[in-house]
Every structure is written in structure tokens, then in C-alpha cells.
């Protein structure tokens, strides 16, 4: 097994196995038509309600993209972008006021394109202006202060921050709360989850963040991928149980196999 770098074989096996399970889940759902039923996290439903609330109050919804560049934490940013795509489609349809703010120069053009596309798709290309997506600063706390000012100036009614955030997270959440806005958040790292959980009205944690796009779209393909994820989790759970039994009886075969 010298082809694979030593110590990484089991990782490759997992990557391939999990990819296969996700593809199988998609195949089962799209081709065989067995679309799985899923438990919808409250935060996704809340997103829709938040848009409605913004329309009612005539106040804008603020979507924050999170910090950092696409070349690091790429998966998290992709998850955020698919939620952004869903949210902007919603606001465009319902004619809600919408602002997307970003501290990341590389996420800025991506966010701009996605929001513009959503407005075009809803048949309202004029709804998108150069003010809709705002790059405020690449300095973390300058961005944070700029968002606080933006929230006050625009009197936002909802604040969405799902993705990769750092220390600015709780400050912006509390500033929004102070204005009476609904906070919807999501973080996948334990480092940020507590802030999100305490500061938000609705939040996604861990895997839910990566699955958020799937929950939003409700397409068979996306729901199928969720089935694949669940199968992957069952595999991991089974492995933990079997491995524990092995170690309990004094055999480290499984641990050794995982270290291959």
C-alpha cells in the first residue's frame, strides 16, 4: 500500500465511502424517486418568517456572509452561499428590503453575483443595486463597527449570519437584538456555536450548517444527499460501537486499521 501516503489510507477510504454514500442517497432520491422525509430545523422555517416580517414592517433583512477568504474554510463559505441564494430568492419574490454585508474581498463578488441572479430570476433586476451587497472593510472590527452603524441606520428587522464567523459574531448579534431584530445564525465549529446559540433566536449547529442549503431547497437531489449523510453517520456510529467492543476486549485491531 505504498501508493497512498502512510497513515492516510483510512482517510481516503472514508472520503471515498462517504462520497459514495452521498451519491447513492442522491441516486436513490433522484433516479429511483424514493425521496426521504427530513426533519426541518426551526431556523430554516424562521428564515422564511423573518422575510415575511421584514415585508410587514417595511424594514430590511441583513445577511452577513461571514469573514475569511474562500481559499480557507471553503466548504463553510459554500454552505453560506447556498443559504444566501435561497434567502435572496425569497426577498426578491416577496419584495422585502435586503442588504448583504461582507468583510471578505473574495466573497464579495460571489455574493454580488448570487444576489443579482436571484433578483434577475425573480424578474426584478432593478431590485438589485450597487447598495444591495456591501463590502464594508477587510479589517474585522472595522467591519463590525460598520455593521453596527448600518443596522442602526437602516433599522434592520432581521439579521442572518450563517457561516464562518469570528470574534465579531456576538457583537453584531447583540447590536441587532438591541434593535429588536430577529437573529438567525449558524456555526459549525464548537468555537463559535455558543455565541450563536446564546445570541440567536434560531440557530443551526455543526452539520446542519452544511445541510442548510439542502433544507432550504427541498429538491429531491438535495434531500437525497441528506439521506447519504445519515447513512454515513450510521456507519460512523456502528464503527464506534464495534471499535469500543474490540478495545473493551483488549483488541486494538480497529484502532490500528484506522491509523493505516
Amino acid at each position: 500500500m505504498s501508493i497512498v501516503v502512510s497513515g492516510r489510507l483510512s482517510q481516503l477510504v472514508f472520503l471515498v465511502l462517504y462520497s459514495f454514500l452521498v451519491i447513492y442517497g442522491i441516486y436513490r432520491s433522484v433516479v429511483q424517486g424514493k425521496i426521504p422525509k427530513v426533519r426541518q430545523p426551526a431556523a430554516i422555517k424562521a428564515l422564511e418568517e423573518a422575510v415575511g416580517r421584514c415585508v410587514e414592517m417595511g424594514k430590511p433583512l441583513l445577511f452577513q456572509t461571514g469573514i475569511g477568504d474562500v481559499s480557507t474554510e471553503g466548504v463553510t463559505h459554500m454552505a453560506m452561499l447556498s443559504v444566501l441564494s435561497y434567502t435572496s430568492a425569497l426577498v426578491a419574490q416577496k419584495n422585502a428590503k435586503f442588504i448583504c454585508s461582507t468583510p471578505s474581498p473574495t466573497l464579495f463578488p460571489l455574493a454580488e453575483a448570487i444576489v443579482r441572479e436571484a433578483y434577475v430570476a425573480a424578474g426584478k433586476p432593478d431590485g438589485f443595486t450597487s447598495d444591495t451587497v456591501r463590502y464594508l472593510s477587510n479589517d474585522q472590527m472595522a467591519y463590525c463597527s460598520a455593521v453596527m452603524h448600518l443596522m442602526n441606520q437602516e433599522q434592520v428587522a432581521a439579521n442572518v449570519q450563517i457561516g464562518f464567523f469570528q470574534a465579531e459574531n456576538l457583537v453584531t448579534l447583540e447590536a441587532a437584538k438591541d434593535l429588536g431584530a430577529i437573529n438567525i445564525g449558524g456555526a459549525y465549529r464548537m468555537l463559535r456555536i455558543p455565541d450563536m446559540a446564546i445570541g440567536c433566536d434560531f440557530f443551526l449547529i455543526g452539520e446542519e450548517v452544511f445541510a442548510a442549503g439542502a433544507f432550504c431547497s427541498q429538491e429531491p437531489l438535495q434531500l437525497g444527499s441528506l439521506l447519504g449523510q445519515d447513512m454515513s453517520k450510521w456507519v460512523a456510529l456502528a464503527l464506534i460501537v464495534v471499535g469500543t467492543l474490540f478495545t473493551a476486549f483488549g483488541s486494538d485491531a480497529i484502532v490500528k486499521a484506522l491509523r493505516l
Partner: protein
Amino acid sequence: MESDAKMSIIQKIGYRKMIYLLVLVATIVPMIYTVGLPVVVSKQTSDLYEFIEKLPPNSNVAIAFAAYAGMYPDAQAATRAGLVHLFRRPLNIVLWHNSPDGPMLLGGELKYVKMGSRIYGKDHVILPYVAASEATTSAMGTNIRGVFSVDSFGTPLDQIPLMKNINKATDFSLHIVMAAAGGNEEWAVRQWNIPHRVPIGAFTISIVYPALIPYWRTGAIVGMTNGVRGGAEYESLVGAPGPGLRRTDILSAVHLLYVGLIVVANMEMLKKKRSEK
């Protein structure tokens, strides 16, 4: 609604502003009147101290100095005590900067380090700044010269005696990440510990600390300090009192204030529930 006369002071000022005021008081008062309470050393801190203490003489230690000025006060105490400790032991130290603020901050800390008979280039080297990322951490693990060609004074690495036999992760007995604001420790674990089995030590800020506990359990991180609290512990282990021990009173006061606030909030809630019944 209650009448104005019945409203408590908290309701009149608004509970938010009242709490803000209390936070200010709890910080400022112990700043002026210090008591100097003792600290208890935690397992993770003593693990790191012991590991460094037991390193054989002339071991090579790599330090990624990742202190961002903004978050630095949290790690300052531990960093200073850690540097004092590392330089006190006969270890070869290779330090590089992972933060643009590093050179300025390190200069301030090295003032507290007793250099004794140490000679730059022979037993310690300071490399310049390189942007912190998983990729550079990984690149450094296999070929340091691919990332740095000169040290922070512009001397080519090949002309530095200490660097003669050092070029990759496996040349080191310990890799310490200092004062990073998130990410660096995990990159070190993934790119230095996993492929090259170099033990990792961390002088962390306390926000990162809980997220690193799993790595400490698995042994990838040999030990770590928890923010300014861990700094105070490390200061007492090393015997070099500094900003950590000076601030323990404020830590106590504000933490107790938060505990008090939470208790009050729950009592309020219970009262409300009872009156509803």
C-alpha cells in the same frame, strides 16, 4: 403594567444599561484595590510545563508566534512566562512570526527574558513573518527553506549555525503555537503532529481553549494554557509574576458578577412563575 413608583431602579434605567454599569464597576474597583488571591494550577497547564521541563538539553523547539495585537492581552501573561521558561532551559529555539504584529509584540516580551549566555544564531533564531495558513504550516513541515530564505535580520539560513541541521518538522522535539487567535493550533496538529508526529504545545487564548481539549485528550497537544488564567498559572509555575497574577482579582470580580446576574435572572423568573400561578 406597574406604576412608575413601583418600578425598581433596574427597570427605570433599563436593565441593559444597569448591567453595563455593574460590569464597569466590577472591573475598575479591583483594578484600584488589589487583594491578590492565590491560583490553582490546572492539569493542562502543568502538563505543558512538565513537558518542557523534561525535554532533553539541546532539543529543538519550534515556536509559531501568532500573536495578533488585538487579542494579545489574553495570551500575554502565558506567552511571557512561556518565553522565560523556554529560554531558561538549554533548548534550541527556532521562532517564526505568523502575525504581522508579531515582531513588535515579541520585542516587548523579550525584555523580560534573561538571555544569560545565549547567543543568537547558535541556540535561538528568529525568522521573519509569514502569513498564517494551513498551507504554509504544511509547507514548513517538509521544507522550512521553501518558506524562509533568510532570518529576520536578513541573514541567509545556511549561514546560521543552528539552522544547519534543521529544515523540517521532524527535526523538532516540540512545536509550540503561541497566542494564536484560532486556527493555528489546529493547523499545527493536522500538518505537524499527524504527518510528522511532532508534539504540539499551545499557549492559547481562552476562546480557542475548549475547542482544543479533544486534541489534548488524544495526545496531539501535550499541554496548553487557558488565556490569562492559564497565564497566571504558568507565571506561578515558572516563578515570574506578571500581568496574569496581577489581574486575577479582576477576573474573580467580573466572573462573580456574571454568576450573580445569572442568579438574579433566575430568581426573577421564579418569582414571575410563582405570581402567575
